[in-house]
């Protein structure tokens, strides 16, 4: 197993363990973002760069923003300034910063003159292949996923609306 692969996998596992052992939800979100970034590195090493980009854009971008938004809306009983001071202490973001620095150093190392760049795995599956499969053989599944997204949209809207109606 390559050393870079071992590093990315180890960072993802360590960050995942930190996610489920944190006490404050925002700290866990930080570690979860690091987990997703390290998993994106693992996906790139598997030759699935398109999936890695989607992992970063949708997971670490959109879904994590949802988490942060809800945690900010929940307002668990402390005054805002005290909570922000609690969140912004260096002890809170030191761990995620160290793990993210490892992943970033790995990225910079791979951007440089990488010795194995000529022997890239030719088995890389590009976005072209994925698109052909997605809208060729599996177009029915895309429709089903659109139904699923519509159901999620309607249910989230309904839950939010009934809450606004009662209060």
């Amino acid at each position: 197993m390559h050393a870079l692969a071992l590093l990315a996998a180890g960072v993802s596992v360590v960050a995942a363990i930190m996610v489920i052992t944190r006490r404050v939800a925002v700290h866990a979100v930080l570690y979860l973002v690091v987990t997703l970034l390290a998993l994106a590195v693992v996906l790139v090493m598997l030759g699935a760069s398109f999936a890695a980009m989607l992992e970063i854009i949708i997971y670490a971008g959109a879904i994590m923003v949802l988490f942060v938004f809800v945690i900010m809306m929940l307002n668990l009983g402390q005054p805002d300034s005290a909570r922000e001071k609690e969140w912004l202490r260096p002890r809170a973001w030191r761990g995620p910063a160290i793990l993210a620095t490892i992943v970033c150093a790995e990225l910079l190392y791979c951007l440089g003159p990488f010795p194995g760049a000529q022997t890239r795995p030719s088995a890389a599956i590009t976005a072209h292949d994925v698109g052909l499969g997605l809208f060729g053989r599996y177009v029915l599944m895309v429709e089903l996923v659109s139904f699923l997204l519509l159901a999620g949209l309607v249910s989230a809207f309904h839950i939010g609306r009934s809450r606004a109606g009662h209060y």
Partner: protein
Amino acid sequence: MDPFSFNDTLLLATILFSVGLAGVLVRRNMVFMLMSLDIMLNATALVFVGAGARWHDATGQVMFLMILALAAVETAVGLAIILCLHARGRPTLDADGGNLLRGAEHG
């Protein structure tokens, strides 16, 4: 030589899935349970992508996209439910406190 063999991918996915499962079983805070579910979904998606790379088939990444949409819907609905419960005056996010299904009029 590929940096990840299929066995390594399966091992990593198993470890991640176990961590997520332990999080769902141990933590009672609903936000943490949702995060653990996301970790488990990521582990399964990793297995799909790894299998797609092993047999050189784009189907693995197609399934990755499906799991991504599934995770987005699951997170959105789960967080909406958490917000709804919180708006009805429950100060904690303990999942064991919500074991009664009642109508909205009791709110």
